[in-house]
């Protein structure tokens, strides 16, 4: 029990900046103003499950899911290459993955806007080669592209962290016993990397499902995602109760996902996040 006091600032931080806002959000979501004061209600939470809002939530989940899958398929091989002991330029490549993240995320998303637009750089280049124009700005493709681009490092880094710590002797033993590379990957490397994979999935899926900037800028505001819907409740409509109810449902959904993935993670001997 010694040195417990070191934790106090941390606990205070959690109380003030995590717990208190969360209680506020929950409170706003279940309270309604009446003539005499305030009363508890489920009307805001019920409204979240109206078909129109379910449509918005479903679209957010689908786009985030697609982005996460693409990030996984792009990120895993990159992480494997980085974790390879014979790979000499590892630090250079790691820096190349990390450095863009030092730049503001909105600035990078704006940059994609000018790259993808009709008279943008990519189309100028395609025209120069005599190829047809690529018009994906303001479509779902651009939204997925923006998500994958922004969140890919969050997939690569945790997988890389786990892979680089994998016990080489296990792989050597498998090789000695005559396992082919594909068997080694399926039976040893991949199962051992699962904690990193789950951490990566969580770290990509969460920001992707809640984004409101990418869908606004690259999606041209054609479709509302849940992030946009929540923003609209707080800013334009001033319906803080409904906004809070939406946030609450989103929060519970995310906690459930993390719980499920967290269990797998523990089962496979990891525990990166939980």
């Amino acid at each position, binding site marked *: 029990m010694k040195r417990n006091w070191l934790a106090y600032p941390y606990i205070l931080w959690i109380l003030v900046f995590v717990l208190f806002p969360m209680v506020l959000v929950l409170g706003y979501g279940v309270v309604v103003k009446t003539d005499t004061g305030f009363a508890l209600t489920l009307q805001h939470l019920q409204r979240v499950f109206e078909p*129109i809002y379910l449509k*918005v939530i479903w679209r957010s989940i689908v786009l985030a899911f697609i982005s996460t899958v693409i990030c996984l398929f792009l990120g895993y091989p990159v992480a494997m290459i980085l974790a390879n002991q014979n790979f000499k330029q590892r630090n250079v490549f790691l820096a190349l993955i990390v450095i863009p993240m030092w730049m503001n995320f909105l600035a990078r998303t704006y940059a994609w806007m000018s790259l993808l637009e009709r008279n943008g750089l990519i189309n100028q280049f395609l025209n120069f080669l005599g190829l047809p124009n690529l018009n994906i700005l303001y479509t779902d493709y651009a939204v997925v592209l923006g998500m994958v681009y922004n969140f890919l490092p969050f997939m690569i880094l945790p997988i890389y962290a786990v892979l680089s710590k994998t016990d080489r002797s296990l792989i050597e033993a498998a090789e000695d016993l005559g396992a082919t590379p594909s068997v080694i990957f399926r039976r040893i490397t991949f199962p051992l990397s699962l904690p990193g994979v789950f951490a990566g999935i969580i770290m990509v899926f969460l920001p992707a499902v809640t984004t409101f900037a990418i869908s606004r800028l690259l999606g041209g505001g054609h479709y509302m995602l849940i992030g946009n819907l929540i923003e609209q409740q707080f800013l334009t409509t001033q319906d803080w109760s409904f906004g809070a109810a939406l946030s609450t449902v989103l929060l519970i959904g995310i906690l459930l996902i993390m719980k499920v993935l967290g269990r797998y993670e523990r089962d496979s001997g990891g525990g990166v996040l939980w």
Partner: protein
Amino acid sequence: MKNLGKILLVGILILSVSLTITGCSKKYETTIKVYNWGDYIDEEVITQFEEQYNIGVIYDIFATNEDMYVKLSSGGADYDVAFPSDYMIKRMIDEDMLLPIDLNNVPNYRHIEDRFKDLEFDPSNEYSVPYMWGTVGILYNKTMVDDPVESWEILWDEKYAKQIFMLDSQRDSIAVALKLLGYSLNTRNIEELEEAKELLIRQKPLVLAYVGDEVKDKMIGNEAALAVVWSGDAVYMMSENPDLEYAIPKEGTNLWFDSMVIPKTSKNKEAAEKFINFMLETEIAFKNADYIGYATPHKEARAMLDEELTSDKTFYPDPEDLTNTEVFKDLADFLPEYDRIWTEVKAN
């Protein structure tokens, strides 16, 4: 590596100390906080005010009336002067968020044209002093549009599919549909709103994007043929790209006013009034109007502006040109209906 860290740390310390020193070198008698739209002032004017009155100005910007309202109503900000629009001023008056302005302390108020005084949202100009005004209309690229642009209808023309920018703002976009249908843009009739919704959903496949301020760069860069824009932005875009032209549709449109107000949170009303008065000095009002391109309600400043601009009825319409325009009213408890309509347009 350790040394590098030390050097960096020392560097940062020196930098921060020197910044604090320079920060203190200008000592003003007092400071005021001003909250304005982005890109809505000639920033030289602020420095001029600071020097002339020995009052420092902390200048912040917002992107929408709603952003500003949330920040002021949550009590987290203590601004002395803000620049909301008509319907928002009404809401702020109703919610007791503004201080009355003593017009005796704002003698330059006499320069304001009479038609911009005593407007409906502030009937006796107790709380607000006009800053700029304008309309909403269609900006089009002459090289891409060969039909005459005189009706909102053109925004539903399949010929221009994926060449149209709409505003990503529920009030403004629903207003376009309501006006095309011949209804009031302040309607509280659900059936009329439903019709507007159907119209907007029908238009959606033709729209390239629902945008905010970035429409300026896009239209200047020839990214689309048609866009719904505010009149003053149109002046700026046309000056950057001569192929662009602005039109007010015949069905009528939204007429708006941005005015200066003093929020209740102000701790220095006297300095705030000085600032408002300064903004109405002929030279200053001219500078701002010339810089940002919006129409000024200031008689003398208008006379100083380029004749070509002020005689253009699309940018300086006369009262008789404005018969079918409407000013937004605060919808108050009816706002959720507009929100629902817009969400249904966006979710489909």
